[in-house]
């Protein structure tokens, strides 16, 4: 038994022999210092000290030797990442091998303190860690959560700027990189080292940071990518550019430094020893500056008083000892300028600066025209601030923009009375492109205008013809320029607002210079008007149209200037023919040369050309300046509704045209009306008028009227342009209104004056009479000169277009308180002057009449200007003067919305003597004195004085035309006295018949016809009466004998006297109707039997209280109450007679 028990005990012990355990104390209360370390700290790495209790090592191998001390194990566990830095995985055991104690990272100080090292060679990835200390038994441990942050060393990749000069000011340097550590109270440090200099600068701020999240002593710890440092003024002194090695060091305890230095160059300030030459020109200069420490890109400024002028180009010698600089224009003359050299590091040369003196020289600032055609010699005017004579013959050159060659010398001439401008001839044959003008006057100062003008050869505009195609050397010739709208691509480019037009002698010599047309006006994409100037040499000319967009049209031989004046056809009698053979027409005009030839050019109602009829030439006879020629037209080849323009061509090729001769059927019925463009506003009771601004600029007007009742009377006026064949452009509101709303008044157009008489002002019949002048593009100011002044603030550089209009006094009889058309646009190119602005000084000539005399009562001018780079037509009001013909644009004016008065506008309406009686729904007629040319009479006939009284009386106003075309009116209307209509009426019409209307009327015999209308109460009144215009203006007795009355009630109708007949349109039975009635003039004043028969036409709309006007062969029927139905219609139509 005992043996058994012993055996059992032995077995127990044998088994128990496997048991083995170690018991160490329990560590506790672990704390770290520091808790923020760098993982790449050189020289011993980063040492982290642990404090707490129970850090118990264990001596081992005491009997086996060598004895080794087992230290507590330190482990790191990754807890969180820092930004996007790579994160470690798994645990990290701090290296400690008791058998190799010298290689251990751990050091034991006591049971309450240990430390360990983090070496760069360990390659521990950055992050925030938990730390665990385990005693040698492997069982007893203590943990510190997120208590250690390991950060990478800072990286410095770039310093901006890379070079600085601290000699004169503090400098800010921005360091860019990564892992720049910052926490509350600690920022990275920049260290600069070179030679014996070793400087450190603590960052002012950091940016682009990510936070380090952990239980750290350091608050607000973060890693950043950018830090800003201040290098104090004069903190580093250098005598030459010195490269400093720059490194970044993070703040302790993670105070690692960047490993790759970046160079920061500290530069000394520039030093100037000499400047040559000692003078500069206002127009520009080149200087050579000697000295030292000039850096590439150094800027040079001339400080002339308060005016700085920065060099436009600067070249620094490789050794930094010299600078070659160029200055543009702008240095104030007669000033002393400091030469200031500023390196790119912002340091300037020390004071006192070297100085240079400024001498005056020309500054070129504009060239006109800005586009020249490559195949002609073009006269170009360029403008300068000052030109000192004498100017050398080779003073002007041009070069392609930006190029030094080829350099073309230009022939120049002075411009009398304009000392600051020269004219040069841009020769034909230049390569297309932009050109710079180079100029040097006697000051020796060169001046250059970049992009002064463009030469173009892009002939994509196809010209059809000029009308007329000839002119007279002794006078201005108004022409219309037509484009060939059917030209194939690419030749179908339209006109662009506003072209320049030149006449270049056909087969020109190399010295011939193109003549530029004046007053070119853009009507639309296909039509221009302009004036060939008086004095243009007799020659055949090619017509050159140069668009602002540099496209060109050329019409070879398109215009001819004659020595003799061209024929002018004033009137054709009859103004319409029957579409039969043997139609005789007498043309009256001036300058009909013997053996002239008359031809017709015809179109159908749709505007399509038709074959010209044969014309048999009759005799030409002239008395004094008035000539007549009879032609016989074979109208059988024409159709009713055709319209023909007659042209009389003298043997020298000059011809005059007359618009137009209508073609009717054998009954002389009018042709079918065709619709025109709508009015802007529907109008009833309006008055219509037709007039011409120039011979080539024709317009139709819709004046006043109402919205359907007199209470809705309008004061507005609309107008539209009309070409030779009656094509009407869209209507537009005129900027000048009637003096008061008016409807049911009467209108007459005499010359360029439109008279408006009587009517209803919105409630009562009116005695008021007013008139407006159709403004002529020839009676405008002309911009004559301009100048530039350099100022501190002014216009920005760029291209501007100026126009100037005249303002007239309130007592002006033609345009009281009104405004003329504006001048042609004058393009100014404002050059750039660094740091300076430009004041543009414009001067202009006063507007003159057709005789060249200044227009009276001009009290001021308005100046319009486009925005910089604005196209023609974008000009708006920027200022005005009170009589002075100059204006300085300093750029401070706020552009308003007001635009210049458009072509076709009338001037302001002028008040004339009142009627003797209130008259609404009156009839208006005018006639020239039968014996005194130039004296006209305006008749106001009948009308309604009030709702119960219609008038039988008439009164007239004498109008005298002066030599310049201006009209003056009599002091008062002259009452017709007892010579009264047989029947009082209103809403009636009036006609004037003379031998221009009907050949049956003897020359000088003129009769006024008054048609039927309504009684004051609205009853029908069909009586038609006539009275002869007597010398002095009085009418002969109203005669109802033989003057056939209306066959049906008509009132509020339109009227026309033409083609030997009197016509009414609409208004039948006091309402809208589409028909027309006609009465054939017979022996004055009788009307032929069958009078007031139906014309058989139908207007596009039945009309009542419409407006009607006649111009050449066109009858315009406008608005009124219509059968659309509309109380006040916008519709219009046109009848060719």
């Amino acid at each position, binding site marked *: *038994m*005992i*043996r058994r*028990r*012993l055996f059992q*005990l*032995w077995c127990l*012990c*044998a088994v*128990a*022999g496997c*048991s*083995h*355990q*170690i*018991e*160490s*104390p329990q560590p506790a209360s672990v704390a770290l210092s520091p808790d923020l370390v760098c993982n790449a700290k050189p020289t011993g790495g980063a040492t982290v000290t642990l404090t707490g209790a*129970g850090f*118990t*090592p*264990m*001596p*081992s*191998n*005491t*009997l*086996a*030797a*060598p*004895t*080794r*001390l*087992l*230290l507590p194990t330190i482990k790191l566990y990754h807890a969180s990442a820092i930004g996007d830095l790579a994160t470690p995985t798994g645990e990290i055991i701090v290296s*400690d091998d008791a058998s190799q*104690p*010298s290689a*251990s990272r*751990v*050091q*034991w*100080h*006591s*049971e309450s303190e240990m430390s360990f090292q983090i070496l760069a060679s360990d390659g521990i990835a950055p992050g925030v860690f938990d730390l665990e200390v385990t*005693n*040698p*038994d492997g069982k007893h441990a203590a943990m510190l959560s997120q208590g250690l942050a390991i950060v990478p060393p800072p990286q410095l990749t770039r310093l901006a700027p890379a070079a600085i000069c601290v000699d004169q000011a503090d400098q800010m340097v921005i360091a860019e990189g990564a892992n720049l550590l910052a926490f509350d109270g600690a920022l990275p440090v920049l260290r600069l080292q070179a030679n014996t200099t070793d400087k450190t600068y603590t960052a002012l701020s950091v940016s682009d940071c990510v936070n380090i999240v952990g239980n750290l002593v350091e608050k607000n710890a973060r890693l950043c990518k950018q830090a800003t440092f201040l290098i104090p003024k004069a903190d580093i002194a250098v005598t030459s550019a010195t490269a400093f090695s720059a490194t970044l060091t993070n703040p302790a305890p993670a105070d690692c430094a960047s490993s790759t230095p970046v160079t920061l160059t500290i530069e000394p300030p520039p030093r100037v020893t000499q400047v040559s030459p000692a003078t500069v020109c206002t127009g520009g200069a080149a200087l050579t500056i000697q000295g030292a420490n000039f850096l590439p890109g150094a800027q040079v400024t001339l400080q002339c008083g308060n005016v700085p002028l920065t060099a436009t180009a600067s070249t620094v010698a490789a050794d930094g000892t010299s600078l070659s600089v160029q200055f543009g224009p702008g240095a104030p003359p007669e000033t002393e300028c400091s030469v200031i050299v500023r390196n790119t590091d912002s340091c300037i040369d020390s004071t006192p600066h070297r100085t240079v003196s400024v001498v005056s020289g020309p500054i070129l600032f504009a060239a006109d025209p800005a586009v020249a055609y490559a195949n002609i010699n073009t006269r170009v005017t360029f403008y300068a601030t000052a030109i000192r004579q004498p100017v050398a013959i080779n003073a002007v050159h041009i070069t392609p923009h930006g190029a030094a060659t080829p350099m073309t010398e230009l022939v120049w001439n002075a411009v009398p009375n304009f000392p600051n401008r020269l004219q040069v001839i841009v020769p034909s044959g230049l390569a297309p492109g932009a050109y710079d003008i180079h100029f040097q006057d006697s000051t020796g100062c060169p001046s250059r205008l970049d992009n002064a003008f463009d030469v173009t050869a892009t002939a994509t505009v196809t010209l059809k013809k000029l009308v007329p195609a000839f002119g007279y050397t002794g006078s201005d010739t108004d022409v219309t320029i037509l484009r060939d709208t059917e030209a194939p691509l690419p030749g179908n480019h339209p006109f662009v607002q506003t072209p320049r037009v030149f006449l270049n002698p056909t087969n020109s010599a190399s010295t011939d210079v193109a003549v530029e047309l004046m007053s070119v006006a853009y009507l639309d994409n296909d039509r221009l008007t302009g004036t060939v100037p008086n004095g243009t040499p007799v020659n055949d000319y090619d017509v050159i149209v140069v668009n602002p967009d540099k496209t060109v049209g050329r019409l070879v031989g398109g215009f001819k200037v004659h020595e003799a004046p061209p024929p002018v056809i004033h009137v054709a009698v009859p103004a319409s023919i029957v579409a039969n053979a043997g139609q005789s027409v007498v043309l009256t005009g001036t300058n009909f040369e013997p053996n002239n030839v008359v031809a017709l050019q015809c179109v159908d109602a749709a505007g399509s050309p038709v074959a010209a009829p044969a014309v048999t030439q009759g005799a030409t006879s002239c008395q004094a300046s008035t000539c007549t020629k009879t032609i016989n037209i074979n109208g059988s080849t024409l159709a009713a509704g055709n319209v023909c323009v007659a042209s009389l061509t003298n043997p020298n090729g000059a011809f005059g045209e007359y618009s137009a001769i209508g073609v009717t059927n054998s009954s002389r019925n009018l042709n079918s009306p065709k619709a025109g463009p709508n009015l802007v506003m529907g109008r009833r009771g309006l008055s219509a008028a037709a007039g011409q601004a120039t011979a080539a600029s024709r317009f139709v007007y819709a004046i006043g009227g109402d919205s359907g009742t007199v209470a809705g009377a309008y004061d507005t006026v609309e107008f539209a342009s009309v070409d030779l064949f009656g094509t009407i452009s869209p209507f537009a509101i005129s900027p000048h209104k009637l003096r008061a709303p008016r409807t049911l008044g009467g209108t007459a157009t005499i010359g360029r004056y439109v008279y408006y008489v009587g009517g209803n002002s919105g409630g009562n019949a009116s005695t008021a009479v007013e008139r407006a002048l159709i403004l002529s593009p020839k009676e405008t100011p002309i911009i004559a000169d301009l100048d530039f002044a350099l100022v501190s603030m002014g216009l920005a550089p760029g291209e501007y277009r100026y126009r100037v209009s005249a303002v007239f006094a309130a007592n002006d009889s033609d345009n009281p308180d009104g405004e003329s058309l504006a001048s042609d646009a004058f393009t100014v190119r404002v050059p750039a002057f660094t740091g300076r602005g430009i004041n543009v000084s414009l001067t202009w000539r006063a507007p003159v009449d057709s005789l060249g005399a200044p227009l009276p009562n001009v009290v001021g001018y308005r100046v319009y200007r486009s925005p910089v780079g604005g196209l023609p037509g974008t000009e708006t009001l920027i200022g005005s003067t009170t009589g002075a013909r100059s204006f300085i644009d300093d750029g401070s004016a706020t552009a308003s919305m007001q635009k210049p008065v458009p072509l076709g506008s009338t001037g302001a309406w002028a008040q004339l003597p009142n009627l003797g009686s209130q008259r609404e729904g009156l009839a208006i007629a005018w006639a020239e004195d039968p014996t005194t040319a130039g004296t006209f009479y305006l008749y106001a006939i009948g009308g309604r004085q009030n709702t119960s009284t219609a008038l039988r009386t008439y009164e007239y106003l004498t109008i005298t035309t002066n030599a310049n075309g201006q009209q003056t009116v009599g002091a008062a209307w002259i009452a017709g006295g007892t010579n009264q209509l047989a029947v009082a009426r209103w809403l009636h019409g009036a006609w004037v018949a003379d031998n221009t209307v009907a050949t049956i009327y003897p020359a000088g015999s003129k009769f006024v016809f008054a048609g039927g209308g309504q009684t004051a109460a609205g009853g029908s009144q069909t009586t038609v009466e006539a009275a002869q215009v007597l010398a002095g203006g009085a009418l002969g007795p109203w005669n109802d004998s033989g003057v056939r009355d209306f066959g049906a009630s008509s009132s509020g109708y339109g009227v026309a006297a033409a083609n030997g007949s009197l016509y009414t349109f609409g208004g039948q039975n006091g309402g809208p109707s589409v028909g027309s009635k006609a009465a054939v003039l017979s022996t004055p004043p009788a009307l032929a039997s069958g009078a007031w028969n139906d014309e058989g036409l139908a207007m596009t709309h039945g009309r009542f209280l419409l407006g009607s006007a006649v111009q050449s062969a066109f009858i315009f029927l406008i608005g009124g109450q219509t059968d659309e139905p509309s109380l006040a219609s916008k519709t219009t139509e046109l009848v060719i007679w």
Partner: protein
Amino acid sequence: MRNSMLIWIATLMAQTVTAHAQPTSSANASASASEPPAGSPPAPEATAPAPAPATAPAPVGEQAQAAPSQEALAAASRDDNSRASIIISAKAGGLASFGGLAPFGIWGLDAGFILPVQQRRLAIMVAFDYTQPTQTGTEMDPRVASGSYTWHLTEQQVHIMPALYYRATQFGRVVPYGGIGPRIELLRSKVKGTSTPTITQTSESSTTVGVGLPVGAEFQIGPGCALAELLLTYGNLDHTATGLSNTGGAALSLGYRFVF
């Protein structure tokens, strides 16, 4: 710690004594019915001649037991081959370690039986002894702030060695003996640092098995025998604290043994 060690030793001894006391009575019972089991070979004493009491000195134990009277001694002499005796001894001495530990005292208690065979020359005993040799050293270590440290190792050892003894009883009052047996070694290494800064003790314990070879002699003195014993031991000692070593050594002890 020391108290706990003593308690642990006492506990082991008590358990051993208890375990021994029970088989003793049982052994008596067995001895009283010491007939070999059926089929077993005849007991050796049945054939072996009995030693001559007149010429052979009485074993110490026997003497101690027979001391009260001549008759008892004679009877004991007569019964040498037929009676088992209990022996209990206590001893103390010194230990010379073979494993690098410093010499240290050793204390022990033996208990066992003299087997009633071979003229009582065989005995089975269980020896309990305790010693705690130490060692001290100073090491250079750069990881320690002071550059060195002094360690102190206390190797507490409790041995339990059941062994078979041969007792040369034929020499009368002097009984040389020798034995051999396994040693169950209960080891505890306590290591600490004694220099400044101090290192708190870390303990490391394990149990292992070794071997013991006691050689000694009994001298009958008084009621028992004085004894002198040289104990040669060997066992593995493979602690972290100690490294790979052994518990081997030579322990020379003097004691007194009772034979009942």
